[in-house]
């Protein structure tokens, strides 16, 4: 993942609507068994579009301490 941010998923809050995966510009995410999964973490550019449009607050970026 680029930068000093990484994706965190709160799986118990995810309802599997698929908005995050559909609008991810780098195809980092996929819905598997009605929950979001990070399938290509190395492609993440930390744009935050998934967090911006997640209606359930189940995916978000956190700063990684170096």
């Amino acid at each position, binding site marked *: 993942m680029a930068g000093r941010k990484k994706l965190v998923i709160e799986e118990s809050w995810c309802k599997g609507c698929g908005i995050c995966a559909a609008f991810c510009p780098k195809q980092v995410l996929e819905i598997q068994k009605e929950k979001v999964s990070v399938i290509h973490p190395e492609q993440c550019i930390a744009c935050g579009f998934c967090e*911006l*449009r997640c*209606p359930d*607050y189940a995916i*978000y970026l956190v700063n990684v301490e170096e």
Partner: protein
Amino acid sequence: MASDLVHLYMRIDHLPQMWCPGCGNGVIMRDVAVAIQELIEDPELDFNREDFVIVSGIGCSSRAAGYLDFNSIHTTHGRAIAFATGIKFANPKLHVVVLTGDGDCSAIGGNHLIHAARRNMGLTVIAFNNDIYGMTGGQYSPTTPNGDKATTAPYGNVDRPFDIANLATGAGASFAARGDIYHARETIDIIKQAILHKGFSLVDVYSVCPTYYGRKNKKGDAVEMLKWQKEHLVPTARYYSMPESERADKKLIGILSYNDYPEYTDEYAKVIESCRKKDKK
């Protein structure tokens, strides 16, 4: 675990929220929380968390007042703006933000909406507009498009819909704007502008209801409904740079009308002041 925003501004013990999968309401609620956070954290502005009051009515949208961790009140159907008017009058320095739905603010509370707009009460009204009464099972609302289906319009809706932002402008609102789910960042900025506006401001935010409106009208799931928004709703700068022929099936996301009318509680304070001066003489 949850993001800092959720920890700071939402009642985490009430989460996860109970809206349906893909419901746009969660996105609008987040937009409101981010807008308020950015105003509070802006060193050039003087916004305090204690000065915000969240008021909601009844309907799916109005559950947001329970999830957001501010001074909040969940009122009766259609009366959110009436309660908010009372709060603003009692303490005009408060930032009163009304979270309401298309039915709550334009049908049941339609009169409160137009008169608060006409008076230019210093409220910020965020309409979660999903084109349907979701909580009660998908009856058509005043914003259901003509011809679309609902449980109460199985052969298609005969009514013509309200455009809530235009309705507010027509009633004299000094600030009316439109936002949506797909353009969440733009919508956050519009909500900030609405809160910064001194008089009555209304933001008609196009939500999505995949469960009732989407399914009844074969609009697909939440992703398909957001793709429709991406293609048909256009932020201001791009909208005005498009050739007119391309705008026919598009709607503008941004501020639709703005006027610098005097705010109601300010005008009322002037009356009180002038009466006090007369008493002293």
